[in-house]
């Protein structure tokens, strides 16, 4: 649309334009992209999620996987060897494994590769969710596998469904409690509290009346289970929210005073 003749005030609009910056500007663009973050890498979301889970699985200490499997195997072995009823054993073993496992899953500052992870744009919340998915999923799979195996024996007269209900509530509650304390406080403290909660529960299996009130959290009734799962969900969400804070509670004054 060349109408310069009708627009004399724009005559010479193409004159005197400075040259465009050189190609080095592309390097600045790439640097900004890395530093500013917030943009997912190319690829479909499920593929990125799978890649993140795979990457995190390699970072989570192997001891977490190994200890969970060993303790679960020991519980199953005990039931099979002693001919004991599976419900109380699984109700003790599964929450213990998951509660301690989840308490130890955070923070990423304990990872050997933390320095590398820290410069990536992936947020702490996403990392926490990925680890929750991995560890909780792994422990859940182990517990379901063990329960299914035990249900095939004569040690679960009430059936597989009842066996799962026995451990599902305590497992979710201890896992969420451990996770929240790990995020807001520190992993050692979280493991300690999870252990104390578990011991209180274990004592309810004894003739002692001490801490008998704790047993309500382990009741395998549907309504109680629903309440416990809801409470666990609230604690889990709180943990995820807390993980996104710039300065964890345990690190007050970690940054300079302004």
């Amino acid at each position, binding site marked *: *649309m*060349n*109408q*310069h003749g009708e*627009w*004399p*005030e*724009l*005559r*010479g*609009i*193409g*004159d*005197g*334009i*400075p*040259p*465009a*910056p050189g*190609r080095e*500007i*592309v390097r*600045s*663009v*790439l640097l*900004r*992209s890395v530093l500013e973050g917030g*943009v997912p*890498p*190319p690829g479909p979301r499920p593929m990125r999620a799978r890649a993140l889970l795979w990457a995190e699985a390699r970072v989570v200490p192997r001891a977490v996987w190994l200890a969970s499997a060993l303790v679960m195997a020991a519980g199953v072995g005990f039931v099979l060897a002693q001919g004991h009823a599976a419900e109380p054993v699984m109700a003790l073993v599964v929450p213990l494994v998951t509660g301690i496992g989840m308490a130890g899953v955070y923070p990423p500052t304990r990872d050997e590769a933390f320095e590398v992870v820290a410069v990536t744009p992936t947020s702490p919340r996403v990392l926490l969710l990925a680890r929750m998915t991995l560890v909780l999923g792994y422990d859940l799979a182990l517990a379901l596998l063990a329960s299914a195996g035990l249900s095939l024996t004569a040690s679960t007269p009430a059936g597989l469904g009842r066996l799962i209900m026995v451990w599902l509530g305590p497992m979710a509650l201890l896992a969420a409690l451990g996770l929240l304390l790990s995020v807001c406080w520190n992993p050692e403290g979280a493991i300690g509290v999870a252990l104390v909660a578990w011991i209180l529960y274990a004592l309810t299996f004894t003739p002692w009346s001490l801490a008998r009130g704790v047993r309500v959290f382990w009741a395998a009734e549907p309504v109680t289970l629903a309440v416990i799962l809801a409470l666990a969900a609230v604690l889990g969400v709180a943990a995820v929210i807390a993980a996104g804070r710039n300065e964890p509670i345990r690190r007050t004054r970690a940054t300079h005073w302004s």
Partner: protein
Amino acid sequence: MAVRLAGIGGRARAGTPAEDADVLARVAGGDPVALTELYERYAKPVFAFLYRLAGDRGTAEEILQDTWLAVWRSAGTYQSRSSVSTWLFGVARRQAHNRLRGAPPPVAAEPSADGTDPAPGPEELAVGRDRVQSALLRLPLAQREVVVLAFLDDLSQHQIAEVLDIPVGTVKSRLHHARATLRECIDEPTR
């Protein structure tokens, strides 16, 4: 419909639409070499467009960098509904709006209080350029971008409508109002 880039700022090494689409696809795949290649093809016309839009070199360079960052991040959203060049100008225009919206226009060269030009000497050679820039800076951003695309990049009204994602009627309307404003500039008594 590909932007022809026939204007003075458009003498770039732009490839065919198919080649451009291939380069952009490689950018979407995370290839930084392709991003550089795209830059070498289109930096000149896009920078000229931004320079006339922003009114100063520094701001134009900042918007150019913003534009290529946006291209790097959003190349995967390109769906071949328009040519790469049209899409690229659309991205540049959005980045310019982000940066320039609400910002006061840069002060054009004005005579000093005693009537002497504050930039004498070689700047005299740039009188024509300053005159154009002063005129452009009197226009609202929405009219300025239409005028620049029309007269610097020699785009048709249909092409401008595609770049700006507005109806052709709006292009015509903006050109009409821009022309009226520029005529007022000419009619104003010189100081």
